[in-house]
């Protein structure tokens, strides 16, 4: 497949890995621990594991899996809200597949479906809109989840519903923004990160400049990165070069997709429909100012939160012995959590990081086995 296979070429990967290996010790310098590079986005975590990239990296580099997996930072109370909406008579609750299995305090959407709620998986918010057109006597709600990548699609869908005057379509808005979440990580006193791979598809919407504060205020180099394995290796190479040469810049590895200024039409739609929330709770990260997004008053009729008069959810905390927060912030490795692989595993996930295949705990659960096997042989 064009524009994918070229970026999965093993021969080029080998060369890149050689280069990274050559530069890594210089880049690491006098640090007493390996370079801590956070790939913010769950999509990158997925690529790392799918292609076994970490097994190719030198010991001077350690990847820290970031919170850029929207289902991982979704507070349980929000899943409970989804279930409350889905349980209303006449509601068709539509969602991306990712959110189906995330546990709420009492059940997931998958369980709500089994209990008789009309919960449907869709590929696109536009497909949810099509369901609304076909079922004028039902209330169709779309679970708008995700970072800036997904925001234009939900905003444009809402605007389309508005143009058509559809009264039975609404969004349950749980979008979050990347820069604010990154800032929350950077202000953490326990921070031990050295640099970032920034999410390529978020960046194709917001552009390169929203990351300027990372290099300017926090002196952490950052490379906007694509999702094919060669993209990630190239970005890591660019990052270690920055360290080795003593630079600290926002660089764009993914220029074929990410324009400097982002996507004009997408940003216009976002600005038209959404505004920032003063506070929003993230699972594991607590309250982050300005990271959450809500639907503007003008489009209140399409806001499921207003339509179904959801009570502001009491914040639900993860049990004390789960260290999701520390893992999310990159302060703790998944296996250092006392629940990891013991009470919390993919069959019976307690924390959200174990639910999503992109969650770092689920990923490490599988990867850890491989590492252990290698130790044994």
């Amino acid at each position, binding site marked *: 497949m064009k524009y994918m296979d070229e970026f999965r070429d093993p021969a*080029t990967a080998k060369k890149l890995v050689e280069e990274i290996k050559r530069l890594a010790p210089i880049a690491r310098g006098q640090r007493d621990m390996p370079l801590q590079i956070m790939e913010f986005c769950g*999509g990158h975590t997925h690529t790392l594991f799918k292609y076994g990239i970490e097994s190719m990296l030198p010991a001077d580099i350690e990847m820290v899996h970031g919170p850029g997996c929207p289902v991982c930072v979704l507070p349980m109370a929000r899943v409970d809200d989804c279930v409350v909406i889905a349980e209303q008579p006449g509601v068709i609750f539509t969602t991306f597949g990712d959110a189906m299995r995330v546990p709420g305090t009492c059940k997931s959407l998958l369980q709500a479906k089994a209990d008789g709620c009309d919960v449907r998986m869709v590929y696109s*918010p536009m497909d949810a809109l099509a369901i609304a057109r076909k079922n004028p006597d039902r209330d169709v709600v779309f679970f708008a989840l995700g970072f800036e990548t997904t925001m234009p699609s939900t905003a444009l869908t809402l605007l389309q519903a508005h143009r058509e005057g559809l009264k039975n379509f609404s969004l349950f808005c749980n979008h979050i923004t990347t820069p604010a979440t990154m800032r929350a990580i950077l202000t953490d006193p326990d921070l031990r990160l050295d640099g970032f791979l920034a999410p390529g*598809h978020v960046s194709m919407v917001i552009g390169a400049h929203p990351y300027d504060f990372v290099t300017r205020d926090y002196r952490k180099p950052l490379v906007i990165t694509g999702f094919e394995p060669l993209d990630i290796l190239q970005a890591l190479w660019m990052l270690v070069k920055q360290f080795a040469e003593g630079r600290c810049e926002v660089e764009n590895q993914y*220029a074929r*997709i990410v324009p400097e200024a982002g996507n004009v039409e*997408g940003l216009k739609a976002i600005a038209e429909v959404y505004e920032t929330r003063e506070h929003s709770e993230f699972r594991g990260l607590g309250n982050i100012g300005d990271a959450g997004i809500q639907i503007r008053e003008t489009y209140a009729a399409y806001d499921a939160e207003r339509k179904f008069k959801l009570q502001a959810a009491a914040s639900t905390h993860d049990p004390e012995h789960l260290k999701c927060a520390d893992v999310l912030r990159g302060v703790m490795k998944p296996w250092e959590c006392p629940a990891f692989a013991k009470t919390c595993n993919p069959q019976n996930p307690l924390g959200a990081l174990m639910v999503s295949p992109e969650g770092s705990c689920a990923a490490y659960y599988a990867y850890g086995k491989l590492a252990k096997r290698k130790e044994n042989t």
Partner: protein
Amino acid sequence: MCLGIPGQITELVDLEFLVAKVDIGGVKRDVIITCVVDDEHPAESCVGDWVLVHAGFAMSRLDEEEAARTLALLAELGDMQAEIDLMRQVETST
């Protein structure tokens, strides 16, 4: 929520609602192209474009020149590596 895949626009389906068909490895899907058209690049000129598809929306026009540049750079890197290797060999043999 970042899963995005490059696909090629094969036909326009609806000019009013800006719907086009993309082909992704032989799989076709109608997508909204609002985010990849503007006055300079109207919908009519989209057929043949490579776009990044996410959740049923074409979210970015793939810059084929940039893609070629990235690949060329990576290929060069290999040549550079070969040169370094050669130099090392020369060094060790002398």
